[in-house]
């Protein structure tokens, strides 16, 4: 226990109160460790604002969610009506509801951008593996949170989207039918489903999410932020032991982030007040029709943030399973011939490949679609160990690596677009190619990430002082 401190004589009431608190709770200590004496690299660019923005949106979702929960009825007979009640009769209810619905999309926008930043600057590399893992877990929880929240308005898309996704679980071999029954609590999506999704959406998942966010930030503050150069700023310190290329988070990045927050709020409000439906992507038009279990809509599309993964699910047809089986077999042959394994290892690989191909052909393609969809998210967890590049940041990678990242991004966006469209043969081929590119990007990373001529990484970060910059715009 620390010694009791006393405020200097003649100190003001505020100072005396702070001393009183600090003697009982590490308030100043926490503030200093995480803000005032927390050093962050000074060369952050615009990509570094999305973490703070994600935190802002999280707070927005929680606060608006609390008020929505006061008026919403998790009852299949009343849910749709209660949402319209919020939109019409609850004072400012429309604002709260739009903040929540627009916030859901905004959350995914900032989180996707945040993840992309991590990807291009190698923010997941040693020693930040756990920061990345907690982040991936946050992404997974966020998806669960959004999926269950989307059922609550009880519109046609809520209902049929949930129906389609929960039905996927019934494709799991052996336990599938029981598993989907357990999730729904009924044989079709119904009142029981709505109640349990409500419970998960308002308390279970948010608790997990908040815990993970705290872990994400604690882990980050333990190792310190990466930066666009991928240089470890802690390696060069001044006489006081502070990193030379870093500055205290507070006040420099607090003012920086407050600026980013106000720009974000401006854009967010423009959508919220003038296009809250987001062109039919944030609030789907069909969802203004109350759920009707007897009337399947002609085209069921998930909300935009799930569409890349939904595309991969749809892409996994019998043809795709055959392609995967062939790729797997070729990979096994290559490993046996060129892998330099001993005889036992070669046999093990051959047996494993045979079993895998056998399973691929035994179970329904729909099940493998679920595996592909889930695998597309889970593979992110392995990124720190898949990347073998000698440098972190894309700035010092060979030029053609940028093309690899560009192709990966282009296909990810194409998958997203195709997932929002009704299925078409041409679209399906593109989705299949996109799925292969997506998985190829990650699974082949141990090889391609090492290839090419890397540029020398500087000792210090590249930073242009803003002192002579009269306009003040530097990002």
């Amino acid at each position, binding site marked *: 226990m620390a010694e009791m401190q006393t405020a200097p004589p003649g100190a003001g009431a505020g100072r005396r109160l702070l001393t009183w608190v600090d003697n009982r709770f590490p308030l100043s200590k926490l503030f200093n460790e995480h803000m005032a004496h927390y050093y962050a690299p*000074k060369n952050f660019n615009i990509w570094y604002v999305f973490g703070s923005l994600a935190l802002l949106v999280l707070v927005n979702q929680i606060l608006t969610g609390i008020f929505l929960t006061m008026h919403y009825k998790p009852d299949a007979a009343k849910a749709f*009506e209660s949402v*319209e*009640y919020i*939109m*019409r*009769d609850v004072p400012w209810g*429309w*604002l709260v509801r*739009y903040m929540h619905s627009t916030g859901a999309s905004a959350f995914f926008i900032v989180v996707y951008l945040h993840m992309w930043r991590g990807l291009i600057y190698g923010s997941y590399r040693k020693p930040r593996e756990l920061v990345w893992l907690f982040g991936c877990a946050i992404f997974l929880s966020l998806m669960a949170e959004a999926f269950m929240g989307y059922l609550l308005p009880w519109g046609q898309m809520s209902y049929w989207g949930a129906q389609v996704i929960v039905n996927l679980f019934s494709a799991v071999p052996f336990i599938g039918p029981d598993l989907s029954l357990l999730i729904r609590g009924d044989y079709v999506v119904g009142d029981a489903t709505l109640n349990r999704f409500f419970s998960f959406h308002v308390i279970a998942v948010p608790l997990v999410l908040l815990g993970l966010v705290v872990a994400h930030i604690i882990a980050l503050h333990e190792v310190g932020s990466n930066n666009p150069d991928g240089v470890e700023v802690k390696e060069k310190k001044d006489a006081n032991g502070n990193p030379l290329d870093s*500055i205290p988070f507070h*006040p*420099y990045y607090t*003012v*920086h982030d*407050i*600026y980013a*927050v*106000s*720009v974000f*709020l*401006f854009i967010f*409000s*423009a959508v*919220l*007040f*003038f*296009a*809250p*439906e*987001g*062109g*039919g*992507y944030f609030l789907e*038009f*069909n*969802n*203004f*029709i*109350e759920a009707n279990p007897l009337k399947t809509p002609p085209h069921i599309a998930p909300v935009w943030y799930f569409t890349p993964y939904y595309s991969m699910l749809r892409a996994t047809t019998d043809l795709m399973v055959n392609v995967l089986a062939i790729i797997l077999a070729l990979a096994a042959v290559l490993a046996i011939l060129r892998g330099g394994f001993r005889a036992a290892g070669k046999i093990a690989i051959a047996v494993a490949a045979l079993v895998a191909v056998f399973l691929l052909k035994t179970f329904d393609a729909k099940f493998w679609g679920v595996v592909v969809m889930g695998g597309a998210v889970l593979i992110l967890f392995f990124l720190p160990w898949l990347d073998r590049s000698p440098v972190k940041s894309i700035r010092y990678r060979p030029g053609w690596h940028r093309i690899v990242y560009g192709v990966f991004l282009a296909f990810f966006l194409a998958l997203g677009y195709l997932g929002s469209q009704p299925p078409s043969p041409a679209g399906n081929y593109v989705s299949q190619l996109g799925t292969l590119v997506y998985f190829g990007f990650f699974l082949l990373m141990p090889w391609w990430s090492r290839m090419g001529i890397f540029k020398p990484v500087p000792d210090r970060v590249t930073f242009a*002082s*803003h*002192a002579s*910059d009269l306009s*003040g*715009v*530097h990002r």
Partner: protein
Amino acid sequence: MMKTLVLRLLVVLGLALPVVPATASEGGYPWDPFPAAKMTDMAALQNGARIFTNYCLGCHSATYMRYNRLHDIGLSDEQIKKNLLFATDKVGDTMRAAIDPRQAKDWFGTAPPDLSVIARSRAEIGRGSGADYLYTLWRTFYRDDAKPTGWNNLVFPDIAMPHALWQLQGERRARFVEVKDPHDAARTMHRFAGFEQITKGTLDQQQYDEAIGDLVAYLQWMGEPAQGTRVRVGVGVLVFLGLIVLFTWRLSSAYWRTVH
């Protein structure tokens, strides 16, 4: 004056934003653009409310819409009671149709849908807003003796609802011509080639289009009665945030000027 102009522009923008310019003609009859300027025209909205209660509310409810919300489009309790309410309703009630849904289902084959949020639900990405859809729907009814009700519609083929406003528009017949399918020479397609008036209605075509514009404006408003407030508040919020952005930008650069 200026304020109304800005407001109108924004409403038009708000209505137009969800709409990607109509692509090709695939998927049926193209939708006509709804005259969005009516959204800020109180007289048009009030006339739309009158048409709605006189012609639609007999069969269609608007269960989430309270009569007294019509205050927002400039109607007083007295006016609502005198002109729009059924005898037994109160101004705080929601708009409920007198028809028994079960009987309606027997008569039309389907229960008439609730119209509270109809304008929001009928938008389609790439085709137009829900208001465009409704505006076109109500101007493309035609006589079709092959249908049980004697009516058909270009936007909603085989629609179960008869033309409830036929007295206003009069009866029309649709002319179709047979054309070769460009993708398949062996097939012919029906192509719509215009309407022919059979009997006159109480309104001429221009008056009828105006009346439909009013009705659709009302339906669009009823889909989200707060939309006017939303846009007005939004303008204030953006002006405020714009100033905040300027301030925080200067604040941030003031701190960063000393970082070398």
